[in-house]
């Protein structure tokens, strides 16, 4: 179901005074629409989203994107919008580049009079750049950010209240975890674009060579430690693709599932009703998780030594080269491996093709407390006019947000790397095509019920990108003992939350 906002509620361009003027009306309207939306459609329950359920609803919905867009912002609207996002990088498969290009072509065809100033920024640079730009009142009108970042900007007053209803949708069309990530202090500051969970991939041939069952993933994190050691001992190759670089998003995405599985965490984010007030970084579960990494890196030396300076991108080549046994990976990894194999030459090509053939996807292992994975994805946000250079053309912004988060493009843009943020996307024929053509998509989507969002507090980025990786590095370099490193991290988190 699509809910439309009356066209005359919005101005063609917005300055601060106009914004205040429209604020009250928009607030009332959005509240009413949200209520209607929630009544009309029940919120998503991730626990029911089994691979079978996902397959059963794929292809049951026909979507006319242009017609939906016309009801939100007229197709002849003339305007301008600036937009920053983490665009496809060299590490992404070709299909991601193609879909991105197709999206911009489709948007230009649908809204020929809206000029979009697009800036693609690298994943590891975007946060720092956007912070600086917002601080200097030079931010873009729209920014698509990974799920972890938005709350910091919202808490800083650098985002505008903007709900799915403002883009013509219902909040109930999006995953609850995703809506949580765009909510700060009871207000909604963005629209989810895509959501995914990772899985464990392994090289079945290397497992076989090491004397392990080639068709079975390690069931627990303790098994991962044991498997990694066995692979190293029997083949001389690295077992598990540990990542522990500081200020690289890959690190928390790969370590937090392990921490949560053992019953740890940065805060109580893995609990059913997290308060984000209790520090878990030095509880027994967290210490056990760091100890497991220590055992792999220091005791068994069964993981790449370069884990401390590597991002996940540096693990992909050893994996395709048959030098790495297993790693936590993105849904798009299989497509990327296929691309690498297609581009390899000579003996490398044969080896890469074998690795692709022997690649298996499985659930991320469980621990004594639970099976867990980071509930990942991205959201699109409208920046606060005070942080943007000049006025915001809100209608142009709404058009782009709506186009991107609708069932068609939230599915296509997430083709191999993620899943549509708008759950109506799961009902489309494009979703059916994805399920039919993308191997292991059912495995990665079946991790969704185990997804845990990062703490929805402004300090989350520093905790996840700096404090947690620092904790790992302190233990793995033996600068501190495992327990000391956890205590050090806990003390830093407490200081941070205490307002240091």
């Amino acid at each position, binding site marked *: 179901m699509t809910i439309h906002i009356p066209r005359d509620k919005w101005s063609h361009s917005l300055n601060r005074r106009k914004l205040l003027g429209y604020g009250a009306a928009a607030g009332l309207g959005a509240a009413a629409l949200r209520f209607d939306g929630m009544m009309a459609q029940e919120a998503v329950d991730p626990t029911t989203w089994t691979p079978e359920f996902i397959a059963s609803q794929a292809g049951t919905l026909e979507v006319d994107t242009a017609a939906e867009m016309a009801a939100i912002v007229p197709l002849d609207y003339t305007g301008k919008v600036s937009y920053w996002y983490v665009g496809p990088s060299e590490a992404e498969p070709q299909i991601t580049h193609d879909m991105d290009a197709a999206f911009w072509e489709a948007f230009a065809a649908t809204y020929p009079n809206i000029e979009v100033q697009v800036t693609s920024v690298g994943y590891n640079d975007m946060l720092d750049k956007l912070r600086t730009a917002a601080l200097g009142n030079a931010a873009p009108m729209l920014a698509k950010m990974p799920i972890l970042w938005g709350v910091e900007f919202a808490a800083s007053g*650098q985002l505008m209240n903007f709900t799915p209803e403002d883009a013509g949708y219902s909040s109930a069309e999006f995953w609850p975890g995703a809506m949580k990530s765009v909510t700060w202090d009871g207000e909604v500051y963005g629209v989810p674009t895509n959501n995914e969970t990772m899985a464990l991939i392994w090289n079945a041939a290397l497992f076989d060579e090491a004397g392990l069952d080639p068709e079975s993933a390690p069931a627990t994190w303790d098994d991962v430690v044991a498997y990694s050691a066995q692979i190293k001992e029997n083949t001389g190759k690295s077992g598990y693709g540990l990542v522990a670089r*500081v200020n690289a998003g890959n690190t928390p995405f790969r370590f937090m599932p392990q921490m949560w599985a053992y019953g740890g965490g940065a805060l109580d984010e893995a609990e059913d009703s997290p308060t984000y007030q209790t520090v878990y970084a030095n509880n027994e579960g967290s210490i056990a998780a760091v100890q497991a990494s220590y055992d792999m890196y220091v005791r068994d030396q069964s993981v790449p030594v*370069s884990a401390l*300076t590597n991002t996940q991108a540096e693990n992909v080549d050893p994996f395709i080269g048959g030098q790495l046994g297993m790693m936590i990976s993105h849904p798009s990894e299989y497509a990327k491996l296929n691309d690498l194999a297609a581009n390899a030459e000579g003996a490398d090509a044969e080896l890469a093709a074998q690795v692709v053939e022997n690649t298996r996807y499985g659930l991320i292992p469980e621990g004594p407390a639970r099976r867990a994975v980071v509930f990942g994805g991205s959201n699109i946000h409208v920046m606060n006019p005070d942080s943007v250079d000049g006025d915001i053309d809100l209608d142009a912004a709404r058009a782009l947000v709506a186009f991107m988060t609708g069932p068609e493009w939230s599915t296509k843009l997430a083709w191999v790397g993620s899943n549509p943020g708008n759950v109506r996307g799961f009902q489309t024929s494009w979703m059916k095509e994805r399920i039919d053509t993308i191997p292991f998509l059912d495995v990665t989507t079946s991790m969704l019920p185990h997804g845990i969002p990062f703490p929805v507090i402004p300090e989350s980025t520093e905790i996840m990108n700096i404090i947690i990786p620092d904790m790992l590095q*302190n233990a793995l370099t033996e*600068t501190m003992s495992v327990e000391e490193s956890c205590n050090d991290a806990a003390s830093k988190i407490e200081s941070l939350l205490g307002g240091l």
Partner: protein
Amino acid sequence: MAVTSGPDQAVAATSSPTRLSRFWSWITGIVPSMVAHRGDYLYILPALAVMMVVIAYPVYFTINLSFHNTGRALDFDNKVWTGLDNYRLLLTGDYSREFRKVTINTLNWTIWSTLGAFLMGLGAALVVQREFIGRGLVRGILLIPWVISAVAAAYIWRWLYHSDYGLISGVLTELGLIDSNIIFLDSVDMVMPALIVANIWKEFPFAMIMLLAGLQTVPEGLHRAAMVDGASPWNRFFHVTMPHLKGVTIITVLLLTVANLNSFTTVYIMTAGGPANASQIWITDIYRIAFQRVRFDVASAYSVILFLVMMSMGYFYVKALTRGDHRRTIK
């Protein structure tokens, strides 16, 4: 010791101007000179205005920010005056342990990089100063590290040093010199020496160029006279060449020191200060605190400390550069 005074001391005391009177005579000398050359000052006024905007204002803003608490909200309009709290946090408070560690890293990085680049540059300058076949080619090759992009160089060195697939370890293993890979960038003990080597490689051509220019000024006649007097090559180097290089040596060392204190690219790209902050230096730590931990207030205090150190370097640099200028220009 008894203090004596006599006619000679009395004469010296009256003829030696005090600091205040020297300053006053400098002012009374320079002001009329500026008035007389006001046209010249008008020419440089646009440049001065630009510098006020792009240098003086940010410096003022940073110093001002260092006395405030900005919180995580980056709300500069509502910043709270906290006096010297940010300096206290850095020097004796919660950041002090990290600050001390980073300061030691910075000293190691700066001293060893400067010394290494200077000595290697001096050696290279002495070699390429002599006439030999292919000298131009060798000079060109030696300049490559300097002209290559710092970012590209950092990535190349990162792969040379890579702990699992690095070229250096690979070659040494092939030659049978080592059994297992040398861990450069992932070891808290090896990372700083490894970075310093990469930095010396990048910087030594600059020292070479500077010292080569200095070597051209050493009079050939003095060398010949020393040879006639039986001076050994070492004696000629230390007693003829080096005294003539004194000025350029001071300037080169100062410039290298300033460059190393400000050197961000190599460290940030190769290790981002890791592992476990073992290669964190002041400039990367300032970036980390400001842009990754979003503490612009503490980072500003940190920057002011670095600024004061740099200004002292700048003072000595200007003094070395303008030695004798005053005598030549103010009459």
